[in-house]
């Protein structure tokens, strides 16, 4: 009997040893347990989430470029290469020759990588007890990112919120879990907003501590690179604004505008000589630097550096800026014509002294253009956006006087003439001021959609495909979902026209 027990013991030990021997662990990869084990691990994973916002498909390039190139703000520069790599940098963003094969094909996966990464962290937070404040803070940031990313996906892949009266038109799948192999269908726009509000409301309620101040942050230092209470409020303000709920949008926008935490940055012209320039040229000092730029008003900002990897499209240093004098996209003549001669914002658009011919390029946020030439700051949210949002809301549903005051703070800073109009003209002027102030920061296309307007490109539009004029409604406002998604997911419905 002892022998039998001994044999069973040996066999059990052996089979345990077998399983152990066969559990051969990777050394360059982390298993889910190892990846999200401790608080420190969770912080690393959250960094990974923020870095995915910088990806070439999302705010790092594609999403941000499309928002202006695809509108009357964009043009192909005269010195754009006739072929080659630079020629191939997002040409569709301007031509609007959209198809499911290679247009916005990076934003869809990159957006959902962000969402899947966020969901993984949220699942882990539910399963494990961490320090309560830490857990709350991480959860709030994750929820805010989840809401913003889904909202951004609808801005490209779905028509505007009021496209149908009951918001029954298709938006994008809103995902609370990463489940590879499942085939989620598209949610309606109403559902996406409902879920996004749920997420952002929870995030805001967590971030706002019981005494009305902000929840303590486990990080030290400046938090413009991470979601905080105000950037979460900013996401919700945008949601209301895009719905046309100007009352609520105004409430949220004013939380930021009246917080006292952010003040409009100065715009100080200064001479700079970037490489490849022989003579000094005027730029705006607050913009001509590495992050943080316009620091006093920055709410949420990214520092994108090609050397950090994952910028397949060489980030957009090559798209807007100097690349042997032939950027792939530039500002339209119609946009440039909006600025009065004395407007310091003219220094965002610079004639590049390069061969074959000088051409005006986007130099709004050129980084340092020095030793770290491929790094620059990208605005996700800054005070000016919300000043203009409050102004527009006031003009529509509140006090025109306050709208004019808010507007004056923007025009005065720029050295532009004060706006004094009233009624619908005031609203129009605010929309135009918004176009001027926020140009090439990722807003114009979405403003046009929100306002249910088409656009007419100026005489510098040389397209022969008919896309110099776009009338609302248009299929060009709901971009094709990538073919890989359509092929792999039988429940995925393509947008009309593709």
């Amino acid at each position: 009997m002892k022998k039998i027990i001994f044999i069973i013991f040996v066999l059990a030990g052996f089979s345990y040893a077998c399983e152990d021997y066969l559990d051969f662990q990777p050394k360059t990869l982390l298993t889910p347990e190892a990846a999200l084990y401790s608080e420190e691990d969770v912080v690393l994973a959250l960094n990974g989430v923020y870095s995915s916002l910088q990806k070439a498909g999302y705010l790092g390039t594609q999403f941000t470029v499309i928002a202006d190139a695809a509108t009357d703000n964009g043009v192909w520069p005269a010195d754009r290469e006739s072929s080659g790599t630079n020629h191939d940098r997002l040409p569709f963003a301007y031509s609007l020759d959209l198809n499911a094969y290679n247009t916005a094909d990076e934003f869809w996966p990159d957006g959902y990588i962000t969402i899947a990464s966020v969901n993984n962290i949220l699942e882990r937070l539910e399963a494990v007890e961490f320090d309560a404040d830490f857990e709350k803070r991480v959860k709030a940031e994750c929820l805010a990112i989840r809401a913003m990313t889904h909202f951004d996906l609808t801005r490209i892949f779905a028509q505007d919120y009021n496209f149908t009266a009951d918001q029954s038109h298709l938006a994008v799948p809103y995902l609370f879990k990463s489940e590879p192999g499942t085939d989620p269908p598209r949610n309606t726009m109403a559902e996406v907003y409902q879920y996004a509000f749920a997420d952002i409301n929870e995030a805001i309620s967590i971030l706002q501590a019981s005494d009305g101040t902000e929840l303590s942050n486990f990080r030290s230092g400046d938090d413009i690179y991470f979601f905080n209470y105000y950037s979460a409020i900013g996401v919700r303000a945008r949601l209301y604004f895009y719905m046309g709920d100007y009352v609520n949008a105004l409430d949220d926008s004013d939380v930021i505008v009246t917080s006292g935490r952010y003040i409009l940055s100065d715009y100080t012209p200064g001479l700079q000589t970037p490489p490849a320039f022989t003579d000094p040229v005027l730029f705006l000092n607050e913009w001509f630097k590495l992050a943080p730029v316009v620091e006093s008003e920055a709410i949420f900002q990214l520092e994108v550096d090609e050397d950090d990897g994952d910028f397949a499209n060489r980030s957009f240093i090559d798209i807007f800026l100097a690349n042997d004098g032939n950027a792939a996209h530039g500002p339209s003549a119609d946009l440039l014509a909006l600025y009065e001669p004395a407007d310091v914002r003219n220094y965002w658009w610079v004639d590049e002294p390069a061969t074959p011919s000088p051409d005006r390029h986007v130099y709004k946020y050129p980084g340092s253009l020095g030793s770290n030439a491929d790094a620059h700051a990208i605005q996700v949210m800054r005070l000016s956006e919300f000043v203009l949002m409050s102004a527009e809301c006031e003009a529509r549903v509140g006090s025109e006087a306050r709208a004019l005051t808010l507007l004056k703070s923007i025009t005065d800073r720029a050295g532009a003439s004060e706006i004094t109009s009233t009624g619908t003209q005031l609203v129009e002027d605010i929309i135009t001021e918004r176009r001027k102030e926020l140009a090439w920061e990722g807003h114009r296309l979405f403003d046009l959609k929100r306002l249910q307007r088409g656009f007419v490109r100026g005489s510098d539009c040389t397209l022969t495909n008919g896309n110099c004029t776009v009338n609302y409604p248009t299929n060009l406002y709901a971009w094709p979902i990538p073919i890989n998604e359509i092929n792999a997911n039988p429940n995925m419905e393509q947008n009309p026209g593709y």
Partner: protein
Amino acid sequence: MKKLLLFIFLLIVLVPVQVLAQQRTITGTVISSADGEALPGVNVVIRGTMTGTTTDVDGNYSITVQNQDAILVFSFLGFNDYEIVVGSSSVIDVSLEESLEMLDEVVVIGYGETTRKSFTGSLTSVESESIKDIPQQDAISMLQGKSAGVYVSNIDGKPGSTSSILIRGLGTFNGSGSPLYVIDGIPAASSNTFNPNDIESVTFLKDAAATSIYGSRAADGVVLITTKKGKAGKTNIDFTAQYGVTNIENPKGFQLLNASQYLEYYREAAINGGIDPDDPASGYLYLPLSGDYYDTDWFDLVTRTGTTQKYELAASGGSEATTFYFSLGYYDETGVVKGSDFKRYTGRLNLIHKVTDKLDFDVKVFGSATRQNDEWGGGGGRGGNLSGSYNTSPLKSPYADENTPATLNGAGFNFDLPSNAQHNPVALADLTSNFYEGYRALPSLRLNYYPIPNLKLWASAAFDFSYITRKEFMSKYYLAETEGGRGDQTWSQALTSNYNAVAEYTFNISQDHSLKLLAGAEAYKRISEDGAAGSVTFGFDAINNFAAGQATSVGKLDYDYFGGTLLSVFSRADYTYGEKLFVHGSFRRDGSSVFGPDNRWGNFYAFGLGYSLSDEPFIESIDMISNLKLKASYGIAGNPNSGDFDWRKTYSPGGAYNLPGAPNPGTVINNPGNQFLKWEQSSQLNIGFDIGLLGNRITATVEYYDIRSIDLISERPISLTSGYSSIIDNIAQIKNNGIELTINTVNVSAGDFEWTSSFNISANKNEVLSLATDVDTLIISDDVAHIKGQPAYQWFMPTYAGVDPATGRPLYYTSTGETTFNYSNAEIKVQGTYPTIAPRFYGGFENSFTFKGFRLSGLFYFRYGGKIYRSLYQDHMMSGSGGGGNMCVDELDRWQNPGDITSVPKLDATYVDPGPSSRWLEDASYIRLRNLELSYSLPSSITSKLGMLDLSFSLRALNLITFTKFGGLNVSSGVTEDGSDYPVPRTITFGINANF
């Protein structure tokens, strides 16, 4: 004490024999009639009795007989039995003749040996004669055409390159289809480190009955490599020296334009494209007839006559207790493309020592060092020595002259070469290097213990360690790159360990029934690591290591780690009835780390049946038939064709969210994993027969097989909303079936003259049974697809309809059979339903003539069917739009005037090549005289005076002639012809072999 016990034991056993010895003792020596060498281990039995003995290590025996009428029977595996009546003599020396019959040939199988007669599965084996002394480092490529069912492909001439083997068709998508290599019982990678002269035999195991004892790794077949052993007796020393030259077999295979043709060509292209070739503003198309041009033959400048040298010293021998085989080898090859060469140094010691009658051990140690120079970047592209020579304009000089701008003069080389993006292929050999240094050690130890008769227990431990480092350097004077020089180094190391414990038991149930049992366990582990680092901007050319550059090389810092473990138990039973019916069964259970806990264990098994009809009286009575055996087998083998960690959900370090002035590391999602992932399973049926006619002067084997491979592992695209683009999964099924025929004949055997032939042919049909659910067509790349119901890897592209005689523009067929200029309206279709990338059939035909000391032998290899996509040709048939790169002379057949009938379109510098089409597919059939050898052995009357056993000279030619319609440089390199292909050389060598 043990020795004393043994002595007492022997005394007790032997004394009675001595007592009875008044009968009579016969002694003698048994030798082989073929070479006169003593034969140890020969059974000597008195007929009709159980009395017997075996010869000792010197072939001597001693046996006691009762009377003069006793008949001694001498029998030994591989030799004919010999019987003699004792008579009055007390010394009987016997010379045994080698058996012509292949039946009792010993063949190596998994975890042991068996006889060919009793083997129920499918195997072919190639003996050392075919492999040794080949003027090539890669033993595997020399096996092309030697064995039915074994398709050897990717043969190119690059020094140090290795070819690949596919046994019985491709049965996987995720893996390469390469078989499992087992060297002396140890799973080990085949590579260019091995010395072919150490090989005793190579055995290809082809069906489940043969392979499934290797279980989870056996679905693609198994290649067993057995190295030489020493024989007890006089020490034998063998020395071989070989020297030869290599030349490109068909240098005209890819002929490019010379200077005047080039000028005519691009001028016409410019004019047709509306560009003035006489206008200096036309860039590379500014080609005035009056210009001052060179006429450089770049191809000629980057190629050369190569050499191959080989020196081998081997010694073998030993005593009754200890035998050894020892070898040293040196191989040296310079390639036909400048900048490529390969050297290898090898050493081996195989030692067997008998500790007692019940215990012996077997030690094998192999070590090698290799040195290889390769083209920059491995060849291909603009920066390849050979491929760059195709691109570069013949009007330009390789060397700087007085007109070369100083900024484009790099160490005297001309870098004003816009046609090749400033890359100078001639300068590459001088200003770049790509050097590999490799080491490999393969030590093993095996203990054999025989506790009781017929039971053998053995245990082994074996290790395979390899280390390769690659140093790549580009001089700062190589001006095509602007980094001011570049130095990179990569290194990789791998360690495999393998432990076995096996018991073998053989017993006869009764006279007619015998059973052989084997059971064992195995543990296997492999770990590999590799790294890379590099820097750019060098101040000096002489200090050129990877860290000496003064700026970091972006993306050049890398580390990777792979590995896996396997645990197994296995068993085998072979039952024999009356030496004519053979039943085989095997079972293996494998656990592997490449699958998740729920799916990591798999069971594999096989059954086989053999029936030797020629041992039945009704066949035995037919004189013509000397052997007839039927066999059939069925079994399951597996394939773990998944990445080491693919089943795991993983994160990876990365996604640093660096803030200004503050590094901020992160982790990102990496792989979704699949815990349900399991083995690829291959169920294999094999039926066939062996026949021998006319006393086995004609032997043939015919086999039919049907293999279904299911649960094939592949990436399955999934919804991107998961954050991933695909998941690894078991999705596809492939079927392979085919027929193999092998015939060996002794055509003439008259006196000193003998002519033998060997022929084999294999036909395989491959069919994709299913892809992922609801998928009938899976596009692999822009010109290849898997299509349900058809062979895997179909060429999938528009069909070329030739050139429109009116306009000179290329035409393609639409789905309605009309022609169109518009490539995007063309129908994308499978180019020929069958054959496709794979050949329809292939085989070899070998003849050997011997007369006295002369021997002439030749092997033809043939392949029929299959198409090669000539991507390289396409790149050099650009219809005038080649950006100044050189083009093929075939372009001169271009359309010029309305009404011209040609398949080459009009030249136009603004033409844009639309993409792949059937225009670039060419039949890959060929017949090649792979090996031709003439050798002469001096008569023994002379060699004995020289104190030698043998002295022979040989003249050998590899790839002497190839018959093919294929137009490129190398029909045998792969399914796509591209710039990195290396021409296959014609090699002619002279060798001398001395045996002491």
